[in-house]
C-alpha cells in the first residue's frame, strides 16, 4: 500500500465502495465445469495430436526411405546386369579357344 492509500479520505472511500456495491454470487459450478471440460479436451488432444503427427512422420520417413532404397537397388541391378552383359559379350567376342 502506498502513502496515498492511507489517506483518511481514501479509507472512507474504500469503505463506501465495499458497502455500496456487492458482487453477485459467482456461478461457480458452471465456471468450474467449463474450465475442467476445456482442461480435459486439451490434455486429451495433446497425445492424439502427437500420435497423428508421429504416424505421419513415420510414414513419410518410411516412404521416402523405401523409395530411395528401391531406386538405388534398381540402379545397382541395372549396373550389375550391364556388367554381366558386358562380360558375356566379352566372352562371346573373345576367341577363347585360341586364347587357351
Amino acid at each position, binding site marked *: *500500500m*502506498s502513502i*496515498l*492509500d492511507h489517506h483518511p*479520505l*481514501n479509507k*472512507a*472511500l*474504500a*469503505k*463506501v*465502495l*465495499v*458497502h*455500496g*456495491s*456487492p*458482487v*453477485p454470487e*459467482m*456461478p*461457480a459450478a*458452471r*465456471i*468450474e465445469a*467449463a*474450465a*475442467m471440460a*476445456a*482442461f*480435459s479436451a*486439451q*490434455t486429451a488432444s*495433446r497425445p492424439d495430436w502427437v500420435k497423428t503427427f508421429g504416424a505421419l512422420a513415420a510414414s513419410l520417413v518410411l516412404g521416402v526411405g523405401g523409395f530411395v532404397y528401391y531406386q538405388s537397388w534398381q540402379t545397382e541391378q541395372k549396373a550389375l546386369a550391364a556388367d554381366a552383359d558386358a562380360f558375356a559379350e566379352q566372352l562371346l567376342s573373345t576367341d577363347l579357344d585360341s586364347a587357351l
Partner: protein
Amino acid sequence: MSNPLIFDPLAGLIAKAGRGDRAAAAALVKAVSPKLWRISWRLLRDAAEAEDVTQEALIRLWKVLPTWQAGRAKVETWLHQVTTNLCFDRLRKAGRFVDEDQAPEPLDPGPMPDSRLHQSALRDCVDAALASLPDRQRAAIVLTHYEELAAKEVGEVLGISVDAVESLLARGRRALRLALAPEKADLLQASVEGHAA
C-alpha cells in the same frame, strides 16, 4: 540484468496441472476463479459477460500451462492481466470503453437536499459513480480497493508504472468523491452501519 525469481504460492499446482493432473487443475480453478469473476463483473457489470471472461481466462491458462516458466511471474498476476484485457476488449467491441482523455472532467454537483437514501439507492449511486469512470481508472480502483492488490501488482496487470497507477487512482478517487459528494453522509452512515452489523 535478469529479474529475481518470483515466489508463486500456486507454482506447485501449476506444475502438476501442466503434467495433466486433473485434481491440481480443479484446485487451481477453485483458487483463482472467484477473484477473476469479481474483477470481470466489476469492470463489465454484466454477469453473463463476466462468466465468459472468467472461463476464457482459465482456458488461456490451460493453453500456456505446458510452457509456463515458474519464477518468471505469478500466475495470479498473469490471470488478472488477461482478465482485465479481456474485459477492455469486450468494452471496446461494444463501444463502451472510455479512455481517460475522452472522459468529461468530473463536475462538483454542489450541495443536495439532505435526503436519506435507501441501501439499494446508495448501491445504485456507487455503481453509477464507478461506471462513469474511464475504464483504466475503474480497473485501478477495482484492483486496489476491492482486490487489495499493491500498486506494483496493479501496474503489472495494467502494463503501466507504479507512478501511473498512483495517478490513475488519484484521478479515479477524485472523480468518485465528486460524483458521490451528494450522498456522502448516507454512504458514510451506511458504511458505519455495515461495520456495526
